[in-house]
């Protein structure tokens, strides 16, 4: 199962039988995938089904409310006139007020619809068709296509004449599309929110899209009641069906004539479209998407420069050279010698002091001299003290003698 430039058309009755082999893929399927265009066009086109609505223009304004002004110890919001009811004197009109009108009430003349340039719409449709032929995109969108024999799935025109729903169902079963239908059935949920009371009770997923060509085809009625399945004529392909929600990759079942009509509809890269006046398919930016091959080609590799290494200007952490010897030596190789010289100088100085310590004789002599001096000092002090005492005794005794004499 791959998206191929050649496509087989399958028989409606037997999924193993191929009625036409190797039909070329229409050029639309080679269009570059432009999710940006699709997303833009889809957001705008999706607004075109909207119906105008509005709030009642009088809602919240059916009072003769007036502001009481300042000086009455209340907010200046308009207040309901009159008396005799709770409502009188209550705030009115403002969007913040209870029972007030909303801010910026919705008007019917809101711009509900959006116009999109025709070219953009056509490009979006072309991209969406191209995406239906890319398996990963269809799988990513969530379709159960593991049993489908080929993407894009092209079936002979016989299915256009189906009238009974049983025929339609059996056809889907035969081609592995029933799994997708089962998904739709099993995931039908009651919608959250108020819209369930407004006619949109269920949220239903999208199943396969059947595209036919002949206007008188009866398959519309046959497939109509199968949940999830949509039927559309190839001349009226709708982006809202090809890329529901703006998401590319709807699972599409083409009839043979519808498939063949695509070239006339969208044109090819050689010829502009016949049916869309002057429309030319979008051209891809890259004609050769094999980037690895381009990069590894001789022409590119010859010009390529070698990979840049990160240039580190400086070490990540600055170390203080005044404290960190490694940092210092990195900056100033002479520092090592200076340090060595400094330590040598210190050693030389200490050698001198050691010499003094070892001179014991000198120490002894100096101590002896000191003892001598201190002894002499002691004797002198003692003598002086004794002399003072003698004088005192003499003086007091003299006084006593004098007193005694008198």
């Amino acid at each position, binding site marked *: 199962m791959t998206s191929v430039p050649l496509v087989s058309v399958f028989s409606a009755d037997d999924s193993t039988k191929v009625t036409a082999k190797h039909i070329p893929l229409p050029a639309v399927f080679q269009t570059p995938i432009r999710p940006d265009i699709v997303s833009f066009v889809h957001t705008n086109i999706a607004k075109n089904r909207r119906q105008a609505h509005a709030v009642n223009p009088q809602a919240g304004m059916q009072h003769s409310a007036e502001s009481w002004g300042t000086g009455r110890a209340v907010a200046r919001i308009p207040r309901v006139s009159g008396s005799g009811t709770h409502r009188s004197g209550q705030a009115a009109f403002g969007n913040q007020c209870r029972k007030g009108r909303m801010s910026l009430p919705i008007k019917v003349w809101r711009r509900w619809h959006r116009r999109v340039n025709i070219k953009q719409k056509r490009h979006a449709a072309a991209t969406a068709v191209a995406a239906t032929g890319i398996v990963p995109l269809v799988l990513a969108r969530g379709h159960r296509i593991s049993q489908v024999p080929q993407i894009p799935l092209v079936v002979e025109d016989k299915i256009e004449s189906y009238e009974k729903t049983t025929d339609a169902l059996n056809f889907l079963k035969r081609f592995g599309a029933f799994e997708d239908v089962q998904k739709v059935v099993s995931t039908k949920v009651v919608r959250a929110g108020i819209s369930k009371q407004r006619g949109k009770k269920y949220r239903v997923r999208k199943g396969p899209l059947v595209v036919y060509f002949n206007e008188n085809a009866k398959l519309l009625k046959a497939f109509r009641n199968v949940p999830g399945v949509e039927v559309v004529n190839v001349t009226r392909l709708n982006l809202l069906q090809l890329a529901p929600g703006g998401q590319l990759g709807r699972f599409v079942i083409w009839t043979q004539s519808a498939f063949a009509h695509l070239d006339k509809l969208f044109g090819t890269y050689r010829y502009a479209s016949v049916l869309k006046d002057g429309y030319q398919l979008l051209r891809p930016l890259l004609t050769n998407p094999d980037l690895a091959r381009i990069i*590894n080609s001789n022409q590119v*590799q010859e010009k390529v420069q*070698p990979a840049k290494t990160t240039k580190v*200007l*400086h*070490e990540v952490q*600055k*170390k*203080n*050279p*005044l404290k960190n010897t490694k*940092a*210092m030596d*990195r*900056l*100033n*190789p*002479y*520092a090592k*010698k*200076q340090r060595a010289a400094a330590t040598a100088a210190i050693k030389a100085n200490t050698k001198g002091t050691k010499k003094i310590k070892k001179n014991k004789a000198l120490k002894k002599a100096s101590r002896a001299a000191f003892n001598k001096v201190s002894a002499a000092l002691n004797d002198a002090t003692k003598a002086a003290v004794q002399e003072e005492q003698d004088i005192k005794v003499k003086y007091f005794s003299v006084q006593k003698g004098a007193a005694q004499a008198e």
Partner: protein
Amino acid sequence: MSQKKPQMQVEQKVPENIVKKSARDTKLREAVAKRRTERLAANKTRRAQWEKNAQAYDNEYKAADKSLVDSLRKAKSEGGFYVPAESKLILVVRIRGINTLNPQVRQTLRLLKLRQLHNAAFVRVNKATIEMIRKVEPYVTYGYPSRAVIKNLIYKRGYAKINGQRIPLTNNNIIEQQLGKVGIHSIEDLVHEIVTVGAHFKEANRFLWAFKLRGPRGGFIAKRRSFINQGDWGNREDLINDLVKRMI
């Protein structure tokens, strides 16, 4: 007993682009290795040159000190005075913050690279710079830095201005790349240029980012007063060294 499967003779074919890439990679690797050996050899000669320069400067400084001492002794012995030459270099330290500044003062401080409190910068002494410093005197203190202080500032707080970025001076390549064409190849060359205010002092000083010092340990005396008035701002001549040692 299972039959042994016949060995198929398949020549191991290596994809062409892998062959080409491995050839290119070996060439690149060899070029890198060659450049590395060249660089290491060049580094060796450069380091020898740095050492030689540093030693020459060391001798120069010692000689300058000795000649100063000799001059002083000689003058004393003759009964006269020796007045050493006025310093050619000033170290300016910003001591006031950013609030409520006169716009002219603000601009002058910016011109002196003193954009932040406790920023310090070297300034050459000439008429122009003296006038500038006079304008900002109450907001800065300045004086004549000693060689040791200059050296310590550049080693510990030295950052370079490269492409408007503040790059730490962690190796001499930084200095070589920016100032090599002016003859300054290592950090000792840079210190020497600042100390002696050489011919390329302008380039060397512009290369240096302003020194971002810490507040002085032990504090200021009174920033509201001038140094002469038992305060802090203004010229404090040699005593700037004591202050900056507390701020480094």
